[in-house]
């Protein structure tokens, strides 16, 4: 009875947070003399206006969902895996590398694609594992370690694109030489969306949900995250579980990077992670680390991203407006959570 009441209060505060975020974004638009209603309408049309648009939203949804799935694991273990951007990038680099290695071989293309995914996952795990080892054995906070590894991954991408993997003749910011269409992950006719990548993303969030809800492994991860000292004294090998959390998150991040290469860009481009890792962090915070809510919220974020693409063309507004709204949303949800706690504590 009391529980239900507090749940309602909690929900009310969340609605309030969304409304405040919208008001805040509206205020920002009014400040720069744009028409907010027009902008919102355009975002809506830009994201759900046609089948192509919807499929584009789903294309953005896949890496977001993968990143957020991985982050749920690290957050469960109490870790801030800021390095996820670099882990996505390494996934893309490894997948590209594997495809470049095998594209002239006699292997069937399906197998090459599969090996591309395997390599991408390995790349993400490698980068995440390094952050984990730095944290556990080097005493380097995972936020700093991850941030450092992000810079290294960016530099590595640029070097590859302009160095060893440059296009015949001259390297360019447009990336490496595109792969032969036979090495593309099969797409729906006329659309940029591959059903396979959807399957991977949905499988990822389901696996994470099951892992955290119903397994001993998930329970121990949560114990490490909520009170590492007590978990250690109870006999949970905390270092091993932290490391495994990093590895799992790296696996999902690496898959996200592979999807970007195998299903979206078909080559390595300079900013292959597109900030999906950081957006994934925001999503995980926004849903309060509840796996159930990740899919819809990630879809909403993807829609904002895609919908705002046409803002510069139609309204002469910068497309970063979607970022303002996403950021405001996270901030206000966190603030409202604090307000709610104060409010409920007083009584």
């Amino acid at each position, binding site marked *: 009875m009391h529980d239900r009441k507090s749940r309602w209060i909690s929900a009310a505060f969340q609605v309030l947070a969304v409304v405040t975020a919208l008001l805040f974004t509206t205020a920002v638009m009014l400040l720069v003399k744009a028409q907010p209603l027009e902008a919102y309408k355009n975002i809506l049309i830009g994201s759900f206006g046609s089948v192509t648009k919807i499929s584009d939203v789903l294309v953005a949804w896949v890496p977001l969902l993968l990143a957020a799935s991985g982050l749920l694991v690290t957050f469960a273990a109490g870790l801030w895996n800021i390095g996820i951007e670099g882990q996505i990038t390494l996934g893309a680099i490894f997948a590209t590398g594997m495809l470049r290695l095998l594209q002239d071989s006699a292997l069937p293309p399906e197998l090459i694609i599969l090996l591309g995914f395997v390599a991408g996952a390995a790349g993400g795990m490698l980068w995440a594992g390094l952050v984990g080892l730095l944290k556990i054995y080097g005493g380097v906070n995972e936020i700093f370690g991850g941030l450092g590894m992000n810079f290294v991954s960016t530099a590595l991408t640029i070097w590859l694109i302009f160095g060893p993997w440059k296009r015949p003749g001259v390297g360019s910011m447009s990336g490496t030489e595109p792969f032969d269409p036979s090495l593309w992950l099969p797409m729906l006719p006329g659309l940029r969306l591959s059903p396979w990548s959807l399957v991977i993303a949905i499988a990822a969030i389901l696996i994470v949900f099951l892992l955290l809800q119903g*397994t*001993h492994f998930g329970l121990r991860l949560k114990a490490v995250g909520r009170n590492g000292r*007590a*978990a250690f*004294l109870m*006999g949970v090998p905390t270092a091993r579980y932290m490391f495994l959390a990093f590895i799992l998150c790296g696996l999902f991040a690496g898959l996200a990077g592979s999807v970007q290469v195998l299903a979206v860009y078909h080559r390595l481009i300079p900013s292959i992670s597109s900030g999906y890792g950081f957006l994934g962090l925001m999503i995980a915070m926004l849903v309060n680390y509840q796996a159930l809510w990740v899919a819809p919220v990630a879809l909403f974020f993807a829609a904002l991203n895609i919908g705002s693409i046409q803002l510069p063309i139609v309204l002469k507004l910068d497309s970063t407006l979607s970022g303002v709204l996403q950021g405001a949303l996270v901030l206000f949800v966190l603030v409202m959570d604090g307000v709610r706690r104060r409010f409920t504590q007083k009584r």
Partner: protein
Amino acid sequence: MKVELRNIHKFFGRVHANDDITLTIPQGTIQGILGENGAGKSTLMKILSGFIQADGGEILLDDKVVKIASPSDAIRQGVGMLHQDPLDFPPMRVIDNLLIGHAGGLFPARKQVAAAIQKLQSQFGFNIDLDAFVDSLTVGERQQLEILRLLWMGARTLILDEPTTGISAIQKAKLFETLRILAGQGMTVIFVSHKLEDVEGLCGQVVVLSRGKLVGQASPPYVTDNLVQMMFGKVVTLGERQNMTAEDLRFQVRDLAIEDYRLQIRNVNLDLRRGEVVGLAGMEGSGQLQFLRACAGIIRPVHGAIQLGAKTLHGQPYHAFQNAGIKYVPASRMEEGLIPGLTLSEHFMLTEERPGFFIDREEAAGLTRQGIQDFYIKGTPASTVESLSGGNQQRALLALLRSPIDLLLMEHPSRGLDIESTIWIWSKLKERCRQGTSIIFISADLDEVLHYSDRILVFFNGKVSLPLDAAATTVDQLGQLIGGKGW
């Protein structure tokens, strides 16, 4: 400065930490405040120095009623407190430490401050290099630095909380001399301690706190037995003693040496028999916690051997100790014992080794219900541990212990529990002893130590007594040893 406390009350939840305390301290005296851990000494001093506010009563400084809102407010009114752990900034220079607390303009007046401090130093014969880094100073020097800082900031009443912990005998003599000079100059000194010897040697007047109440006062010449009686004097009947007589050796500690940033423990030897209970007595911070944690493998001793049965354990990680059959129960339930946010059922799943990858929820709930029933926990399998009361959290901690256990190490098994729960919990523990579990436990409650132990080790400032036979020891003897007498 004359300090007067009138009818001070302070509650922490249901605990009455200060119960109607009235105390007058004339100017120029050294007032001792004596009491066992948790008696309310620190609470009272925190109220006087502005860290916390009293729930009732008033404070008078030089016969004027004052409100002390914060530590900086206290020092403005002339009350400075020297904490048990020095409140300084180790990686900074001495002079910068002094400047930090100084209200001043944008640019610190380094030279003037240095000159003022040097003058104070010569007055007391201190010799601290102002350009040295604080972490290069000894504990005694850091204490002197803190005294200098408080005096320089205008303190006319100085509160010292357990100042003789961790300093050498020479430094202690120096400190006492300083305090006597200060009192001679008209300062009021309040000396909080549990060490009888220190209080007797220094203070012109002593009050004793026990369980939040002011239970007595004394002036020189002191009768140690009376002070001990006031500190620990309570009579509780706990039922009949039960002694274990099994002779087979279970756990062995040989020449154990532990080092800590303030304590050095040397040459501890202990032979524990099957089913035997050994109590560790001593004031908090005397080394018993370090010893217990070394037995659990949490702290690595610098030297010595630990053996359980035929297994050699020293040098191995904590989880190896655990797998060998040693189980550790910490005192801080929510910080080290249980995991906030997880339910009782999830705790049972964490501690039980269950086969399979997926959690069998039915089985988990069944197991938890059994535990709840066996240990009379007021809660359901779905209750989060933080929603339980302290006593029920303690029961849950005990319910989570996996049988079989060869050696159970417990910090304060009954802290925060009422007498009935304590008796009940010990009946459960003794039941385990009959099945062959040996227990080593720490307690601040002398009656608990005397009543439930077969043998007792007393700790004082890192020194460890030979095992005492609990049946032949009295509260007074134990109290004297704990207070550092008769070593």
